[in-house]
């Protein structure tokens, strides 16, 4: 995967957090991770990608970050339903925004939300993923890209 491709998703996550009440988001250096040991926090929003790019894009974050993020976008109801909704919406927004660069052929699914890491259905064990660390307030999260082109 090229640096330019990764930058699309880095820009996407920065853009998302800059629309919250606390815009101070930082992104760490991307690294490769084996899919049999996927990067994961408490909750994960998974987007399936088809077309010229095939695979998975996911956003994973701890419950505390998602709770804080709900408040930062003005949502006072921090129920589990909204936490799950939010992690899916973040992943959907980052993936959807990538179409500004990759075009309409970058087809994305509706989000699937899970606790912990994606299963092998979404993350084939023989492949590797790029992990983009995300730091917001005192929390860590990650955007993970597992795409074949």
């Amino acid at each position: 995967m090229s640096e330019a491709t990764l930058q699309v998703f880095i820009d996407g996550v920065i853009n998302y957090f800059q629309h919250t009440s606390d815009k101070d988001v930082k992104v760490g250096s991307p690294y490769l991770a084996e899919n049999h040991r996927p990067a994961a926090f408490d909750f994960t929003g998974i987007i399936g990608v088809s077309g010229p790019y095939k695979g998975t894009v996911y956003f994973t974050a701890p419950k505390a970050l998602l709770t804080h993020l709900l408040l930062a976008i003005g949502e006072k109801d921090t129920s589990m339903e909204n936490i799950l909704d939010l992690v899916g919406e973040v992943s959907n927004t980052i993936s959807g925004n990538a179409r500004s660069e990759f075009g309409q052929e970058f087809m994305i699914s509706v989000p699937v939300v899970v606790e912990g890491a994606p299963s092998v259905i979404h993350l084939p064990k023989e492949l590797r993923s790029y992990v983009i660390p995300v730091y917001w307030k005192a929390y860590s999260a990650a955007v993970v890209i597992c795409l074949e082109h």
Partner: protein
Amino acid sequence: MDKLRMMVVDDSNIIRRKIERSQQGGLFDVVGTAGSGVEALALFGQVDPDVVTMDITMPQMDGIECITQLKARKPEVKILVVSALSDKATGIEALECGAQGFLCKPFDDVKLNGALKELVGDSHV
């Protein structure tokens, strides 16, 4: 002047609630919300909105199909697409199906209200 009636269509509850909150004391009266295109079609006749905000990527029926069906029922309804899909082709496709505006997610209240004002024109602002 009476507030315009607005229906919000998005599969995300937090986005529906965000748009609803943005209209508290605003130009529009949110008369209904739907979590899919199918729900939107069922609700549309009951609430008879003047304006619809419409997501694209949704389960059961996507926003493009829903726009086509809503415009067939009520050609004068104004539709603002609110979607994360930021490519030009999707925007053009939505406009060709009958939407009048496109707002890319993520958005804040200022961007949303600006897009809605542009959608309905000066006569309602």
